């Protein structure tokens, strides 16, 4: 907290969910906050330097909320920030659920609020704004999404709105950047006018009266060409069992096809030739010219040589699938289809103890379990969160692991991949059914907005892919190279073989795998895909491959996931999940191996 009179200004970026705040944030700060066409993308908040301002200004992206009644976590964060914004820059903090005690110091109030209004859904935006205005802070409003409003025949007069509210209102189109310059100028004007925070508590008014006031204002500034009609029939069809269910299956299968096809193509035709043909010979000749043959050289370029496997695996094997998965996910997110899928499947998911909304964390889990666990915060009940997290950890492979499994199995037969997918789905259903019975708690009652169906915008897709690639290299590839490095040290030093011998009865007798298959089981604790990858180098039969992949699928989530579960829930929860997953892995894998061994 700045005790000194800091000249730095802080601006809160606020607005209802799914209004395009994050797009504006990225535009103003040049940073990368994820955005999607569904509610609750920003559960954490981020801060960034407001670029191009004459004064040192910090922009804070507050989670989207509909009200400031502090009825959920996001709203609590928003209320707290209005009183006391975070002061350090570039900090992405996890919002703690503890309310800070009222500070004895004079709280450093935000210098201004930039409130984003949705021109399409003006009333609910104005409702939030009315709460913000109660804080008597300097406020600028951006009237966003005017392009979509115009298309729907809704005209909003920003001059009139500005006049009624007594604050500057700037029409904007966030994705194209239209209006953002003027917004910046208005903010600059407000900050230089030295709009100091007045100290006045917001008066609590009855929500009904507040809505009445807001509806009045909206009626005065808004003009509709035609009465709002309900959505096109196509939209309605998506949420009906027929043809919505077959369409959902087609869309999910299509996405799966895109992930696998594009990933395999990138690997086979672009990355593998590139690395095998140009990068590795360079590395090998470089190392050979520098080092004498010996243990160190083997660690670097030997069997588990981490300059070879440590680069080949992340970049030619995992990276293509990361790209193709996040492309497919970005298309699904940006189109607004996911909430519809959630509504369609809600009845089914209720039987598994979850609401349809948990389809979003589950799908995210196919990318990486950690953001998926974060996304479960948007779910309403604790029971639902626990079930979703258990399913993600037990049965949903992350994209690195999927890439490894596909590479491992697809060369042998596509049927094995299909069989594994079926096993995975059965496991999803049975985990849900079982936990629904075991855990107590009310059935989640979902309310979810179904936003406009929009064609995915290539610029947004491109940006998202760029963010994901960067993040993969920093958060995915580097730890993976490290893990492979550690593995090669263990391997070359003989420790791995020793550990393998200890596990060998389990591996050779129960799972019917070669003794060296104990190695991936140890590595898999560090990173999920490493429970599969080393199998690639072994000469295994189809049944052994299937067993290995199955064990890898159910096996422990990686260490980072266990840590984040412990942080989100309790250490005991994390340990329980750890125990359950490894037991299931050996149990299911062993049964398949034994039965398969009898049949074949």
């Amino acid at each position: 907290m700045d005790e000194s009179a800091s000249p730095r200004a802080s601006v809160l970026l606020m607005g209802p969910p799914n209004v395009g705040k994050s797009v504006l944030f990225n535009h103003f700060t040049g940073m990368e906050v994820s955005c999607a066409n569904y509610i609750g993308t920003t559960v954490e908040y981020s801060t960034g330097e407001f670029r191009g301002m004459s004064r040192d200004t910090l922009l804070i992206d507050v989670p989207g909320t509909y009200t400031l009644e502090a009825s959920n976590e996001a709203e609590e964060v928003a209320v707290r920030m209005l009183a006391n914004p975070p002061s350090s820059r570039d900090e992405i903090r996890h919002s703690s659920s503890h309310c800070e005690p009222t500070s004895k110091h004079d709280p450093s109030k935000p210098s201004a609020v930039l409130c984003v209004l949705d021109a399409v859904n003006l009333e609910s935006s104005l409702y939030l704004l009315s709460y913000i205005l109660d804080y008597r802070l300097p406020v600028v409003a951006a009237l966003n999404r005017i392009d979509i409003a115009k298309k729907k025949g809704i005209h909003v007069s920003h001059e009139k709105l500005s006049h009624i509210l007594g604050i500057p209102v700037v029409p904007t189109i966030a994705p194209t950047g239209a209006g953002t310059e003027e917004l910046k100028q208005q903010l600059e004007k407000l900050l230089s006018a030295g709009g100091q925070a007045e100290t006045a508590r917001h008066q609590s008014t009855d929500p009904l009266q507040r809505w009445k006031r807001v509806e009045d204002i909206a009626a005065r500034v808004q003009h509709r060409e035609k009465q709002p009609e309900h959505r096109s029939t196509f939209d309605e069809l998506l949420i009906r069992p027929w043809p919505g269910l077959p369409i959902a299956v087609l869309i999910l299968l299509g996405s799966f096809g895109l992930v696998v096809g594009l990933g395999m193509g990138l690997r086979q035709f672009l990355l593998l030739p590139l690395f095998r043909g140009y990068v590795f010979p360079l590395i090998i000749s470089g190392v050979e010219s520098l080092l004498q043959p010996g243990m160190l050289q083997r660690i670097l370029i030997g069997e588990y040589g981490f300059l070879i496997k440590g680069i080949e695996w992340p970049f030619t094997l995992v990276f293509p699938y990361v790209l193709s998965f996040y492309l497919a996910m970005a298309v699904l997110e940006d189109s607004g289809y996911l909430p519809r899928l959630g509504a369609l499947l809600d009845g089914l998911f209720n039987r598994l103890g979850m609401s349809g909304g948990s389809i979003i964390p589950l799908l995210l889990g196919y990318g990486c379990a950690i953001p998926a666990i974060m996304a479960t915060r948007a779910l309403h009940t604790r029971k639902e969160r626990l079930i979703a997290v258990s399913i993600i950890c037990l049965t949903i492979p992350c994209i690195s692991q999927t890439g490894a499994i596909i590479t491992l199995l697809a060369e042998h037969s596509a049927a094995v991949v299909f069989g594994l997918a079926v096993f995975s789905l059965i496991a999803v259903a049975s985990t849900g059914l079982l936990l629904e019975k075991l855990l107590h708690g009310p059935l989640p009652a979902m309310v979810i907005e179904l936003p406009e169906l929009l064609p995915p915008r290539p610029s947004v897709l491109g940006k998202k892919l760029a963010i994901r690639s960067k993040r993969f290299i920093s958060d995915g590839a580097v730890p993976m190279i490290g893990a492979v490095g550690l593995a090669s040290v263990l391997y070359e030093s003989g420790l791995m073989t020793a550990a393998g011998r200890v596990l060998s009865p389990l591996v050779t007798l129960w799972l019917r795998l070669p003794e060296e298959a104990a190695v991936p089981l140890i590595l898999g604790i560090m990173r999920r895909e490493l429970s599969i990858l080393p199998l690639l180098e072994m000469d295994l039969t189809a049944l052994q491959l299937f067993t290995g992949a199955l064990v890898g699928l159910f096996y422990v989530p990686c260490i980072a996931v266990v840590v984040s579960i412990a942080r989100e829930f309790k250490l005991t929860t994390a340990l329980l999940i750890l125990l359950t997953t490894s037991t299931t892995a050996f149990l299911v894998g062993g049964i398949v191996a034994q039965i398969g061994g009898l049949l074949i």
Partner: protein
Amino acid sequence: MTEKVQLRRHRRRRGAMKGVARPSLQAVKFFEHLSSKHSFFSRQYNRLFYHRLVHSEVAAAQLKPGSRVLHIGCGPMPFTSFELAQAGAVVTAVDIDPRAVEKARQAAVSAGLASEITVLLMDGMDVDPRQYDGIWVSLHVSPKDELIPNLLRKMSDESVLVYRNPRGWLRLWYGRCRQPVRQRVVRQFLGKESIIIQKQEVTEEVPLSELYPGAAGTIVHVPEHPLLSPLGVRKGKHIAVTGRCMLGGPIVVAVDGRSSAIHRSLAQNVHIIPEHSTRTA
């Protein structure tokens, strides 16, 4: 009782209603012609299909003895009319098929119910429903989408409307008709359900969870929930139902052009005064 009122052939909608209904109609007619000739067959048929059906309907409709009842689509063997008459009602049975009307008259005489049952040759759309305390509409009557709203509009405020819908696979043969009003649904034997609507309750508020796509109305009550009012689900707003998701999933609604899905347990506490509009489910 081949219950068939053919109302304006040119307005028959939906594939399921076209042609497909004909063979099944012929089959039912055949059985009922048989039973109008042979009393043993008739008794079994009656016991199997109609006795319990009509009794549960009469109980659910709270029909008092001495009530005047209109039965639309009575067919050649009007079992429903018989059961109603035996429950103490004075029945006017109508059908659009002259042959069926003739047979039904004979059947009423031979059942000894001629004084309680009057059979008329009429189109259900042309009957004036105001003078009846209860109106029964048979399963085979089509198109119900026009007939039922018409009856609901015209019938007297104290009267009750009972009609039958197919359940399950039968839905593929006969269209299912749902009205955006408060109703009792009684599940029946062999893939049928009876819908009982008290006219008094029609103008009253209905839980959102009981409405079907195509229904619309004004919101009069909303439960406490942080998300409902921001999504536009507030008192006084016009709301349209655009979907009901499968397996007891959410009700999908549009308010001010904004779509949201509301779980059924919450939708139960959102109360609507529906405006009249119809669509088959």
